[in-house]
């Protein structure tokens, strides 16, 4: 071991765990049977998912007219939900890639679940543009493939096409990053499996991982290079999503601040969702010794910082609208804050800018109940942010006679609820079948940051004095 950390640092793994304790604790949820609570939550999520499938089927068989869209507002809940889910999907890569590059060891307890969350939420995000196409069976038309229509190609000047490339690269790279990290942990479950069925399944999933010294050397190199690639990738994804708006000439969208503003917002909402999920999960599968209060506190600090960045972005937007001297731009922002959608704007401001400021207080950011509450508030606030950007910029366009409001139909609402259900169905299945903590990585820091080893070392040092 190259270095031992100072005793002033709090241990990242509490409960005096040994290597085999880590194995047992992380294999337990996979090897045990689901409890009643799991089944209740799973059933609710499944019903929501099925309802969403019903609404999607109705939309596709009848047409986009079943949504609340109108002539003035051609984008509303669908794209709001798309951006919301993509944003949530940013935390996983941020935790596993950016924190890996910064050598933040606390990432190891949460990166697996955060990456799972990323993948599941990007799947939800991807559904919306495909449904919005109206004829999803022609979704492959977004790909630059030679076709029977002569020289008809996709338009590489369009930000919507950049989005196709960005989201699919992001989803597929996140998936291999996640799976490569899972191989040693699947191997651990495979080697503990008692029934031949489990042995077979986890044998297939682990790709025959054996843990040779050379494999580990390559594994670490691949993780590092993937982190280096995923870091600019994750920043590019929401940058490109923001181009969908920023390259348009609509007042309220046509803003150069959008890329960093969207990326900060994405990290903000993603960390909030990680907190929502992990605060429940650590309790349900008894992993409080791995996902500690310290982890929650650190995530709260990230939420506070990114929330403040988002706040600065909101104020900058207002300032620039005033400073530009363009009356359309000025009206777009005045209308947002004081027009008929004032309630959406001020919900956004309260949830995203005000609520994270409570995290300055140590008592609040180390309170589990309060962290959970704020994480939900932030998720709601970030949904409103996208709604405000999209709908309030469109509903009063250049022609006052076409000014209108947007009201969602039950189908709009049903599809959104359906994706939340789908997300939780995937996450709950994951929590029962996958090793939810990167146990191999946790073992590699146990001697440095485990409470038992830290204590032993301190005792030894005390004796030498």
């Amino acid at each position, binding site marked *: *071991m190259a270095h031992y950390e100072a005793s002033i640092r709090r241990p990242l793994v509490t409960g005096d765990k040994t290597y085999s304790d880590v*194995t047992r604790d992380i294999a337990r949820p996979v090897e045990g049977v689901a409890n009643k609570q799991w089944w209740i939550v799973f059933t609710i999520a499944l019903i929501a998912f099925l309802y969403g499938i019903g609404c999607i089927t109705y939309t596709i068989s009848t047409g986009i007219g079943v949504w609340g869209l109108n002539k003035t507002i051609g984008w509303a809940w669908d794209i709001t939900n798309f951006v919301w889910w993509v944003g949530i999907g940013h935390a996983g890569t941020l935790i596993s890639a950016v924190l890996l590059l910064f050598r933040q060891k606390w990432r190891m307890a949460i990166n697996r679940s955060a990456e799972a969350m990323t993948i599941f939420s990007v799947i939800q995000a991807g559904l919306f543009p495909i449904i919005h196409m109206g004829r999803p069976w022609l979704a492959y038309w977004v790909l630059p493939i030679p076709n029977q229509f002569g020289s008809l*190609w996709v338009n590489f*000047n369009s930000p919507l096409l950049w989005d196709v490339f960005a989201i699919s*690269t992001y989803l597929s790279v996140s998936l291999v*990053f996640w799976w490569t990290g899972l191989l040693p942990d699947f191997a651990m479950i495979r080697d503990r499996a008692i029934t031949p069925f489990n042995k077979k399944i986890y044998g297939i999933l*682990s790709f025959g991982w054996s843990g040779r010294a050379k494999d580990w*050397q390559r594994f670490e*190199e691949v993780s590092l290079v993937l982190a280096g690639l995923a870091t600019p990738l994750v920043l590019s994804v929401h940058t490109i999503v923001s181009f969908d708006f920023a390259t348009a000439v609509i007042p309220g969208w046509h803003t150069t601040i959008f890329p960093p503003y969207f990326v900060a917002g994405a990290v903000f909402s993603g960390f909030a969702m990680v907190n929502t999920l992990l605060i429940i999960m650590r309790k349900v599968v008894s992993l409080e010794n791995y996902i500690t209060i310290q982890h929650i506190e650190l995530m709260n600090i990230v939420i506070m910082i990114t929330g403040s960045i988002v706040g600065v972005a909101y104020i900058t937007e207002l300032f620039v609208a005033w400073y530009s001297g363009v009356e359309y731009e000025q009206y777009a922002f005045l209308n947002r804050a004081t027009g008929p959608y004032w309630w959406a704007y001020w919900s956004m401001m309260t949830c995203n800018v005000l609520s994270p400021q409570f995290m300055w207080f140590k008592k609040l950011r180390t309170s589990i109940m309060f962290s959970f509450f704020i994480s939900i508030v932030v998720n709601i606030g970030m949904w409103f942010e996208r709604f405000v950007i999209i709908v309030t910029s469109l509903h009063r366009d250049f022609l006052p006679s076409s000014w209108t409001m947007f009201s969602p139909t039950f189908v709009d609402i049903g599809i959104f609820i359906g994706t939340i259900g789908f997300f939780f169905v995937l996450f709950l299945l994951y929590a029962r079948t996958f090793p939810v903590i990167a146990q191999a990585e946790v073992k590699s820091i146990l001697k440095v940051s485990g409470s038992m080893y830290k204590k032993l070392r301190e005792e030894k040092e005390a004796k030498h004095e």
Partner: protein
Amino acid sequence: MSSNKLIHALYTDDDVLLSAVKQVRDKRYQIEEVFTPFPVHGLEKAMGIADTRLAINAFLYGIVGLCFATAMMNYVMIEDWPQDIGGKPSFSYLENMPAFVPIMFEMTVFFAAHLMVITFYMRSRLWPFKKAENPDVRTTDDHFLMEIDANGADIDEATKFLYDTGAVEIKLIDKEAN
């Protein structure tokens, strides 16, 4: 050769393993392989394993991705069907390049990441339905296994020596050579 003798020495601590690897190599025993439950830092150096070149691979794959994206968009947007979009006609790739940067970047990452991971899986022989090759299931839990070539060595002496390095369990394996 009719048979191949191997010694499997099991350890339960990574620091003990690391010093054992150094001692075993000093004694001129041949370490065939070490199986560990997690990456032990410095192990590959102690074993004398060469650095991996996967990062260099990833860089080259990235260049391939960048070239592919450039060639594709040059063909589609400039050569095959140039269009005048938004008053910006497509006469040359260079003039239109700013609009192509996002996809040039995405393709670079896509190629570098996926081809590197595929290379890793091929080189380390990892794929679905591949049979695991760790000789003891405890090596994914909390045991570290060192595999030593025992041909022509004094088994008793080697065993005693390995116990002295901190091994908790030693097995002599007679592997039938194919």
